[in-house]
């Protein structure tokens, strides 16, 4: 079943990850050779169809950001392969990678630290245009910047303002405009709304959805907020301590939460309408997430799992609980 999980029955995928693994050196000896490793991501496999959104949820340290950064070559994976429209782009030379840099962009979590405080908004948005020489002259450059700003709900006259003159939501719009400046096909949204006020979050999510429809973008949407991921995603992967524990389409996973961690995660998300509160049973997990330097042997969730027994000392296999809905748990094998 593991092979099936990795091979990904999804035929018409656009971007595919196969067994992506990232180990960061945690400590090293006197000669700089690593002696222990942080398990950032282990055996992460998924495929996103064109124009769809894959949601990645999990708590801090689960490796969800690491996955996004591996796809964009910010981290070089220690194992596994990445396919972009069928082409293996894992180990490309900088020159070969250049076209993929253009096609794959990132919207950052913190709109306050991801904009250079010394540049004006217009120049920030124009930077990718300059990098890839997408404008023939200054007039065309200014026109492109204006179009991008309008598209992202900014007034073009704001192009001359510095980042600190914008509110958080506007800054995130600048980030999105910058990400779209190269006409990308694939955008990673790494906690793109979590730093924003509630009423602004909804605006940005709508903007992302509109842009997806308009430009046929494919998203990898990383978030810890299940409600938002549920709203925006077509497919979802749930991660815990560097591993995927459950994967499937959003609806199947939401309807039929299989893995104990997924269930706990859904139940821990606070409900705020009375109806929701009534239907909800709380599953309280014991303890903290273990250290990723030395994750538990076997099933990594077993130190907090309410159903853990001695089987869980062995690594669980993947099982397909329904079509295209994979769970990594002994309960289903």
């Amino acid at each position, binding site marked *: 079943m593991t092979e099936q999980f990795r091979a990904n029955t999804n035929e018409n995928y656009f971007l595919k990850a196969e067994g992506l693994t990232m180990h960061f050196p945690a400590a090293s000896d006197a000669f700089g050779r690593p002696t222990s490793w942080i398990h950032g991501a282990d055996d992460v496999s998924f495929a996103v169809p064109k124009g769809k959104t894959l949601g990645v949820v999990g708590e801090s340290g689960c490796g969800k950001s690491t996955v996004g950064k591996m796809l964009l070559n910010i981290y070089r994976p220690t194992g596994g392969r990445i396919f972009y429209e069928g082409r293996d782009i894992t180990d490309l030379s900088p020159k070969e990678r250049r076209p993929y840099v253009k096609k794959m*962009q990132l919207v950052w979590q913190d709109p306050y630290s*991801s904009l250079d405080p010394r540049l004006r908004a217009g120049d920030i948005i124009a*930077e990718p245009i300059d990098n890839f020489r997408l404008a023939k002259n*200054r*007039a065309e450059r200014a*026109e492109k910047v*204006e179009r991008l700003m309008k598209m992202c709900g900014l007034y*073009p006259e704001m192009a001359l303002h510095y980042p600190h003159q914008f509110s958080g939501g506007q800054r995130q719009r600048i980030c999105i405009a*910058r990400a779209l400046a*190269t006409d990308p096909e694939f955008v990673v949204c790494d906690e793109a709304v979590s730093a924003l006020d509630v009423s602004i979050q909804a605006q940005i999510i709508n903007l992302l959805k509109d842009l997806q429809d308009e430009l046929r973008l494919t998203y990898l949407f990383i978030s810890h907020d299940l409600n938002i991921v549920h709203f925006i995603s077509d497919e979802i992967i749930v991660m815990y301590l560097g591993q995927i524990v459950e994967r499937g389409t959003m609806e199947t996973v939401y309807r039929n939460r299989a893995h104990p961690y997924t269930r706990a995660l859904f139940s821990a998300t606070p409900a705020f309408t009375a109806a929701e509160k009534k239907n909800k049973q709380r599953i309280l997990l014991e303890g903290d997430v273990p250290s990723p330097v030395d994750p538990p042997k076997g099933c990594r969730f077993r130190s907090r799992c309410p159903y853990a027994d001695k089987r869980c000392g062995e690594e669980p296999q993947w099982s397909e609980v329904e079509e295209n809905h994979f769970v990594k748990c002994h309960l289903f094998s």
Partner: protein
Amino acid sequence: MRAEKTIKRLAGSRRSSLFTDVCKRYVRNPAAVIGGVILLIILLACLLANFIVPEEMVTAYDTQAKLQAPSAAHPFGTDNLGRDLFARVLYGARISVGIGVGATALSLVIGAAIASVCAMSKKADFVIMRVVDVITCVPTILLALVLLTVLGGSVFNMVLTLTIVSVPGFVLRIRAVVLGVVEQDYVKAARVSGTKSLKLVLKHILPNALDPIIVDATMTISSMMLSAAGLSFIGVGVAPPNPEWGAMLNYAQQYFRTAPYMAIFPGLAIALTALSINLVGDGLRDALDPQAGK
């Protein structure tokens, strides 16, 4: 309408408007303005010295008028050889300020270049840091003394010596800031946007790292001047007939009881220049940061 205008401005001269922003913020700070004015006067004095006093006055000695107190003919008095101190302090400014600015600028450029290499490559960083460690093991004064003795005392050699001596310090300070900036999201964001390494360094990393460094560097100008003065004072610096301020202090010490003005005026010149440079440095730090005005 307004949008069109701003777009035009965006397409046009961005540099000048950024510059005016900085100027506006600078002018709001009174201490910085005073420092700037003093520094400007000193710099003007350097440039226009020829129009104030003829250059021959620097070395022309009058045995009849040794060690005279300040008077109308000699506003700062005369030294032990009867040379006009006003002319010597005035022309000395060229040498002292020149040494300070030259050595600082040179070490800043070299230091920033080396620190950027450190930031971009871990291997290069390791090698460079070990070299810096070795150099910093040698006491600075000793190194400067040895270099100057070997090279011989001239203005150029003084600049060279001071640069060599201070580059490791600059590398350490700039590297510390640069490594912090490299970790910032906006630098990573620029890289993801396809910005290549050299542009990344020049456009994002150095401008953001240089703020604290610029302030540091302006302060260094004055300490460079003081070091040069010190070395000249010891006697290994700029060779005698040249009116370097530190060298002038050196001669003055023998006559301090009888002719204190021989020490007072060059000393005052050094202090005033150092002070004004520091004030300007402080003002620049605030003006360069777009968020400081808020």
